[in-house]
């Protein structure tokens, strides 16, 4: 089974960086992708921005046993610490339990607050490299949504380097020269 995103086929293990403008464009891309997964019986997990849990569930016709939606606080962000290993371990456990192909999407807006206090771009960069690596180990599609209205060029360049595929303005760009972690 091959998933499609914005009309473009994605291979399993895809780790896609989606640069978008605002929530409306995000939802127009995200919701069909996850709905399609649910319709196919695939487990879906969405890391929503703070305060959007209910809206996300509603727009995805949840609750659904195959659907898990998180908000940052008390979820993937603990205090001002991004525990990449714990987050990916949790994801890995979840993916193993579902026994299906999994679709994972995250609105990375929560990272903006994480970056601000001291500038932890390297931690974010490393996290995305780890996610890239993890995606190769499980039958998953991983989509990271970065709002260009929130993030500047520093994040854009770094995330391009950390993802194997970039979606921007309706174009899916393959990045054969993305960075890889040694883990």
């Amino acid at each position, binding site marked *: 089974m091959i998933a499609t995103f914005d009309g473009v086929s994605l291979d399993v293990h895809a780790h896609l960086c989606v640069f978008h403008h605002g929530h409306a464009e995000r939802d127009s891309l995200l919701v069909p992708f996850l709905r399609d997964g649910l319709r196919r019986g695939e487990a879906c997990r969405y890391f929503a921005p703070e305060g959007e849990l209910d809206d996300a569930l509603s727009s995805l016709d949840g609750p659904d046993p195959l659907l898990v939606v998180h908000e940052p606080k008390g979820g993937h962000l603990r205090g001002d610490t991004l525990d990449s290993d714990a987050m990916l371990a949790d994801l890995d456990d979840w993916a193993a339990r579902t026994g299906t192909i999994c679709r994972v999407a995250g609105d990375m807006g929560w990272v903006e607050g994480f970056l601000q206090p001291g500038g932890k771009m390297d931690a974010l960069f490393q996290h995305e490299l780890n996610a890239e690596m993890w995606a190769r180990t499980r039958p998953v599609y991983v989509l990271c949504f970065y709002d260009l209205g929130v993030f*500047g060029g520093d994040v854009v360049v770094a995330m*391009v380097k950390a993802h194997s595929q970039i979606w921007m303005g309706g174009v899916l760009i393959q990045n054969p020269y993305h960075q890889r972690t040694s883990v």
Partner: protein
Amino acid sequence: MTAEIGSLTKRNHGLGEGMVGDAGGLDSWARAQLSNLYGLFVLSMMMFDSRDSAKILALAATSVSSLGPCASDMTYLMVDGELVRTPSDQPAGPELDRIVSELDDHDSAVTLADGKWRWAFLLRGLSGVTGCLIVVALQEPTVDEFFLLKTLCQQTSAALANAALHRREYEQRVELRRSNDERATVNAQLTKTVSRLRQQQQVHDVLTQVTALGAGEPGLAHALCDLTGLPVAIEDRFGNLRAWAGAGRPDPYPKMSARRQEDLLRRAARLTRPLRERDRLISLVKPHHEVLGVVALIDPDKTARDHEIFTLEYGTTVLALELAHQRNLAEVELRLHRDLVDDLVLGTDNESAYARADALGHDLRAPHHVVVVQWHGVQADQAVSDLTARAMAELEWKALCSRRSGVVVMLVQGEPDGAALFDVMARELGADTGVIAIGGRSVTPDELPRSFTEAMRTLRIRQTSHAPNGVASFDQLGLYRILGTGNSRADVEAFVREWLGGLIDYDDSRAADMVHTLSQFLECGGNYDRTATALFIHRSTLRYRLGRIRKITGFDLGDVETRLNVHVATRAWQVLQGQPWEERR
């Protein structure tokens, strides 16, 4: 932020911590550099996607830290030929601003007091420098890092140029749209104007044709009705209907009181456009300063717009010109008529008279009578004159008309029906206190002065007779024709003195009225009652006077000879009392 990015980039560069080299044969340095270039490529796509120079510059500035150990220190955009800090809320740097303002056309190092490494990248577009990016680092970047910064600035320059082109294209598009809109507006106005001009041309053509055909007021009313689709009324200045076209003609036609009509005309005269008065749009026919009439569109639903108003005004102007022209012609014709009549009654040669009459369309070769008219109790002689002219037209007389010293003088072809003229005059003037006197027949123009004299004599005789109003003809004067002649005046006076001298003296010395009493008694055929009534005296008074007359004169009125002579003498006395007009001159 700069330090962290620096460490990140160093890690990228060195690839010693957590990253692996490329499995496809690229070494880690090459992969890192390609990865950076890929980042720049995507960044470039974003910048090219933007139309906002400030956002492009901001994207470039925030990207600097991800490409090496440097950070953006200050950014500038060219505004009105000057590099201006953009965004304006960046920390003030007057020294840096000065250095940037003095930069020549090349990128160059910038040295400030803090000793940090700085570089000014000038961003160039098609029209020269469009901005400037100042980067700062604790130490000079490597050649590879500098290459990435330069590439970033080149992409930024291209994106700014692209945005400028798009902006210019957008402005041109807006200008083109505005121009198209303006042209569309002008075209719409032109179309409207052409349509209006066509309508006005049609109005002009139709009304000109009506005038050329001499269709008069009815023709004009129908033309206006056809052009406007509204009923049309043409009235004289008193509100009398002269022409109507269209449906709904009221019968009888309503007429306002004179006061309201004058008020209406006054209000309409104050306006430069037609006056709306209830269900009518009114325009005055007013050549010069005199109101000759009113043209009204009957518009109860108030549907009349510019076209209808223009048509009404145009029609009114045409009518005003027509009426003014007619009036001028009439005045000229009237003046020529008067001049000719004056000359004819004073005497002129036949040939000249014929020629002048021919020029006026009047045939003088037929026999004529001079007719004079005078009315008492009518204020304006002009009114009598105008009415006489109208009456002549009504009676279809072929005549020339003039006015001389208070009497209207007519030269009438054929046998004039004086009674018919008198009836019309009396009816129109509302008084029968006038005399129409007809002179004798004249076959040629040189006989007209005689006819005129006869008419005037007849007028005076009739005015001094016991029935001073009505029609009198010289041919019917009878005895008065003899009595009135100037040649035998001395004989007549002697005759009157012979028979009435005693009574005349008595009247003169006593301020009495015996001659008049006797005259009236004889005119009434000796009837006491009729005589008393005519004299407004009592019958006994009459009997007393007749007794005194008999005593003064010794007349026996029963004697036929005496009665005839006395009667003739009283009539002659009347003629003498009347003092004919030509002798008074």
